């Protein structure tokens, strides 16, 4: 079986996109991705749309069909992929399967979400609708899971509160160089640590914002990729895995089983280990998640990710640059788009198109977390040789 290549990528401006709706955002990223790859809409065979909640946010469903029409890509097959906040990673997995199975020789993946027209309370509630009734009735939200987990992590591993703040500082710094990021401003540690409490011990700057945006990737067999581009990336490892839906049922609150299992699967498939990864995009919806993913993916021992962050290992010029894009933290988190945008960053790093964010990388990884670790997709890409 031939390898699956990525030959194009795009993302729209992330942020508050006043007057633009889900259909507009998806079409914008889709058209740009076709242009970036030099592929005609007619040549697209499968079109996947990663989106969690267009109906809940906007009362517009069937967005894949709207997109196929808006791009004039008919009769390309299309389908919506929902895996909550990891819909984008699930989209990469579905797109990979469509090409690897032989069902499609040209698959476009477009992820997007339109959220900012809702209040913070409403948006939080839409996302919290993924919780079990036993959680929902207590008013449990995703940020509250983060607060519960952060307190446990800090107490158990004797980690300083500042180490979490440093994740936010780093990712904001990286975001300054990403023209599509929602926030392109640095923040200092003091600002993070003195921002308003959202879910004690976590504060406003420990959380990603609410965002509108869309991102896209173009996938095809490697044999076809060579017709379009000399520089492309190849997906050499990919896997997805679940953990409990009810979060408190996990044996260890600091271990996300879905991260561990999907990471193992992706490493095994690619033949790589954690040491071989040159750049990674992790799902920093909350600062604490960057620690949990670093540990789950083998970039640090359990309870020690905070030390690597303190030591500067994950800075853009560090040993393992993490979230060179600015992460969800500064780039923003339009649910269905985020996992695709992670892939866009790794693709751009591997083909040398990351501009001022460019690091030296042959192999990159993205980890996209759905719910509070309910389902996780890990993807390993490498530059084509």
């Amino acid at each position, binding site marked *: 079986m031939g390898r699956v290549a990525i030959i194009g990528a795009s993302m729209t401006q992330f942020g508050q996109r006043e007057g633009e709706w889900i259909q507009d955002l998806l079409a914008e990223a889709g058209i740009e991705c076709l242009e970036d790859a030099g592929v005609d809409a007619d040549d697209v065979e499968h079109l996947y749309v990663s989106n969690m909640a267009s109906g*809940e946010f906007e009362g517009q469903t069937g967005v894949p069909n709207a997109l196929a029409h808006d791009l004039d890509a008919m009769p390309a097959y299309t389908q919506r992929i929902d895996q909550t906040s990891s819909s984008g990673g699930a989209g990469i997995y579905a797109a990979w399967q469509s090409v690897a199975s032989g069902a499609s020789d040209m698959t476009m993946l477009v992820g997007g979400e339109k959220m900012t027209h809702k209040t*913070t*309370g*409403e948006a*939080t*509630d*839409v996302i*919290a*609708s993924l919780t*079990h*009734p*036993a*959680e*929902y*009735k*207590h*008013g*449990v*939200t995703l*940020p*509250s899971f983060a*607060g*519960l*987990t952060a*307190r*446990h992590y800090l*107490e158990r591993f004797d980690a300083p509160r500042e180490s979490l703040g440093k994740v936010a500082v780093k990712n904001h710094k990286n975001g300054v160089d990403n023209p599509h990021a929602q926030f392109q401003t640095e923040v200092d540690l003091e600002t993070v640590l003195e921002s*308003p*409490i*959202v*879910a*004690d*011990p*976590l504060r406003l700057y420990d959380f990603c914002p609410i965002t509108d945006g869309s991102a896209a990737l173009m996938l095809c067999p490697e044999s076809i990729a060579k017709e379009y581009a000399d520089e492309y990336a190849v997906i050499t490892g990919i896997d997805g895995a679940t953990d409990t839906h*009810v*979060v*408190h*049922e996990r044996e260890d*609150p600091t271990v996300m089983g879905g991260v561990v299992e999907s990471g193992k699967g992706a490493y095994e498939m690619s033949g790589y280990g954690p040491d071989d990864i040159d750049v990674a995009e992790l799902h920093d919806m909350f600062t604490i998640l960057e620690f949990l993913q670093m540990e789950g993916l083998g970039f640090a021992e359990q309870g020690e990710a905070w030390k690597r962050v303190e030591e500067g290992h994950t800075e853009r010029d560090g040993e393992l640059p993490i979230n060179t894009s600015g992460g969800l933290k500064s780039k923003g988190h339009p649910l269905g788009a985020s996992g695709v945008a992670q892939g866009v960053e790794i693709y751009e790093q591997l083909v040398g198109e990351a501009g001022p964010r460019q690091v030296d990388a042959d192999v990159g990884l993205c980890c996209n977390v759905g719910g509070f670790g309910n389902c996780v997709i890990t993807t390993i890409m490498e530059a084509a040789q």
Partner: protein
Amino acid sequence: MTMEATRYDDGSITYPGHPRGPGGSEPVETIDLSEYTAEIVTWTTSTATPPGVREPNHLAIVEFDVEGESVRAIGQLTTGDVETGDEVRPVYVDELRDPGAGIREPESQAWDGYRFEPV
């Protein structure tokens, strides 16, 4: 009213219960956790609460010991003045949040339940 946990044929217990337990094991009995006390594993005070939820909302993950088997639960706290490791007991509340205010279909689930109160 009970705070019902489920025991499966592999010996594990979960709150809430599921149609099947770990690895597909079958449920064999229910256990009322409201008769037990628990220990706070971790807690938070959430200030950005969604429609119909009290603000601030004090929440904890707690751990019960049911005849040597650990069972965890999540729930609201009666107070934010707690520490990890504190012992708590479940106290019944007939409405934990306003059923009509959020996105969830009010008829699709229960809205009463238990808060945890320091012993």
